[in-house]
């Protein structure tokens, strides 16, 4: 069953009198129990997408120009503030990039999970006693593989590690039982060993609860490990999207190819690691393919307009090399 559908989402930021396109015509869907990765570098719009879906985007400066974010069959952009509270918690939950800022430093870990449990029980009919909620909180901490759950539950956020905090956030997600979990680079601040443990935990949770996950990351390797579907974002547009294996092993868009080539691999042992030349600068790219200045295959056709999405061999590609169509 479909959990989230984003259709033609365009978000602008107002900045210093002008406007910057943060997202342009972005579409994706997330099914139940599916992890969809959104991959891109800084400034690609991936965090804006996460915030837009969770309705945490502050407006101003952000403006949703067009498009729909359909969650549970209704467009959340049109929801009244009172209804937004309904999708929050039991609907959409988010795990943030920086673990050390995502818990209230003044509250014990246990109390924060209990708070989440009470919010959920308020939506349902079952009335919970505090002791019951505390027991449930500890069982969630065990589910996300925190070893000494009873001990960690009594601590304050500054007394536990970043990896443990991300586990606590996952425990809160379990407590809320959301249908959609947004993970905004949840492992970026962690070391590699912790990262792989958290990813494994997340995968288990998704299998168990069947929630859909929007997984935002800049790390292609991480996305490759955990995601069923992937969307590569550049310049606020989906450049290539499809099943993870297709994207990783049969990349079509020059940007995706560049990204994959710049990841160190076990098989490629000789020569220097390649990198995509230049860096992203949105100025003057409104009317052309935004990757043109950095693209090794750039030619005249790239500047005729913004390439439209073409479906090639099961993946969606936005590049003139796969059909010269332009968005009007």
């Amino acid at each position, binding site marked *: 069953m479909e959990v989230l559908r984003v259709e033609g989402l365009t978000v602008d930021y107002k900045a210093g009198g002008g406007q910057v396109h943060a997202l342009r015509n972005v579409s994706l869907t997330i099914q139940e129990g599916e992890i969809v990765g959104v991959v891109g570098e800084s400034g690609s719009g991936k965090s804006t997408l996460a915030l837009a879906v969770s309705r945490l985007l502050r407006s101003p400066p952000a403006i949703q120009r067009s498009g729909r974010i359909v969650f549970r069959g209704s467009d959340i952009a049109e929801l009244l503030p009172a209804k937004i509270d309904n999708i929050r918690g039991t609907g959409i*939950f988010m795990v943030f990039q920086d673990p050390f800022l995502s*818990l209230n430093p003044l*509250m014990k870990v246990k109390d924060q999970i209990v708070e989440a449990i009470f*919010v959920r029980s308020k*939506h349902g009919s079952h009335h919970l006693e505090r002791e019951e909620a505390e027991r449930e909180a500890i069982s969630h901490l065990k589910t996300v593989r925190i070893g000494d759950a009873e001990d960690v539950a009594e601590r304050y956020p500054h007394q536990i590690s970043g990896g443990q905090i991300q586990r606590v956030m996952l425990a809160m997600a379990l407590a*809320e039982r959301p249908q959609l979990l947004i993970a905004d680079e949840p492992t970026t601040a962690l070391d590699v060993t912790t990262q792989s443990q958290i990813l494994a935990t997340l995968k288990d949770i998704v299998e168990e609860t069947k929630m859909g996950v929007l997984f935002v990351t800049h790390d292609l390797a991480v996305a490759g490990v955990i995601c069923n579907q992937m969307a590569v974002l550049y310049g606020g547009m989906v450049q290539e999207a499809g099943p993870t294996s297709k994207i990783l092993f049969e990349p079509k868009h020059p940007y995706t190819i560049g990204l994959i080539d710049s990841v160190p691999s076990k098989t490629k042992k000789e020569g220097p690691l390649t990198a995509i030349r230049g860096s992203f600068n949105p100025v003057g790219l409104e009317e052309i393919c935004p990757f043109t200045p950095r693209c090794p295959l750039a030619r005249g056709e790239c500047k005729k307009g913004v390439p439209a999405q073409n479906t090639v061999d099961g993946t969606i590609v936005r590049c003139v090399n796969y059909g010269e169509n332009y968005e009007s």
Partner: protein
Amino acid sequence: MSFFGTLKKLASKPGPLLGLAIVTAFYGWSLVEGLLQLVGSLIHTPSLGWILLQSNPFTPSLSNSLLPPSLSHIMGTDDLGRDIWTRVLYAAPTDALVSTVVVGGGVLVGGLIGIPAGYLGGGVEEVNMRFTDLFLAFPALILAVAIEATFGRQLIYAILALVIVWWPSYARLFRAEALRIRGLRFIDAALLSGLSNRSIMTRHIIPSSLNTVLSYATLDLGNSILVYSILSFLGLGVPAPAPEWGAMTSLGLSYFPQWWWYSMLPGVVITVIVIGAALLGDGIRDILTGVE
């Protein structure tokens, strides 16, 4: 950090320790003396109010008037021969009450106005903060004069006047804190967990902003005593013959400089309390902000 842990840390440095000692002595004494005065007035035995003092703070003794500080009168006597130290001690509860109620009222009203303004923003912020600006524009003393001229010279009206001019600075402080905390990730997390704005304000914003407000309020205790003393100095405090620090400083001024102790020594007491509160406030702030 636990309450006793904080106390221990405060006591480990001379400045905060001195402040703690002064403020504790002031409030401790005020509590005891205040209760005695209250019970005394309830059972119509006002003498209970000076049972702990060396003499009756009200009875004139003209043969002893304007004696300089000595062992029997450590702060000397006033123009009616009353012991000044006795009167200072008798007046302490009034000043303690005024400072606590004024600062407490300021924190309460300021929080009610400032926290929603900072957290919700938008129209609420505009309305609340313009309302605050309106009150900020009132000159404290003139407002106090107006209120007391209208309602009469009573302690309660002096306190009311002070609270009215006191809360705007707390509203601004709370707003700034709410604004800062609103931007933190854990507020987003709480929002996403489905907490209502009200619970976020009471459960997350208020506890997180108390650090800053508490250290400011401690510093402010001294200020409020000072301003109340100024009111009394202008003749707007408690009516005579009840003693009050500012009033004593004011009355004594006409005997200055020949009989300097009459005005100076109550003034020194005010200064000591204000400095004590400031030292304590600094110490608390240093601990809460992690300055070692």
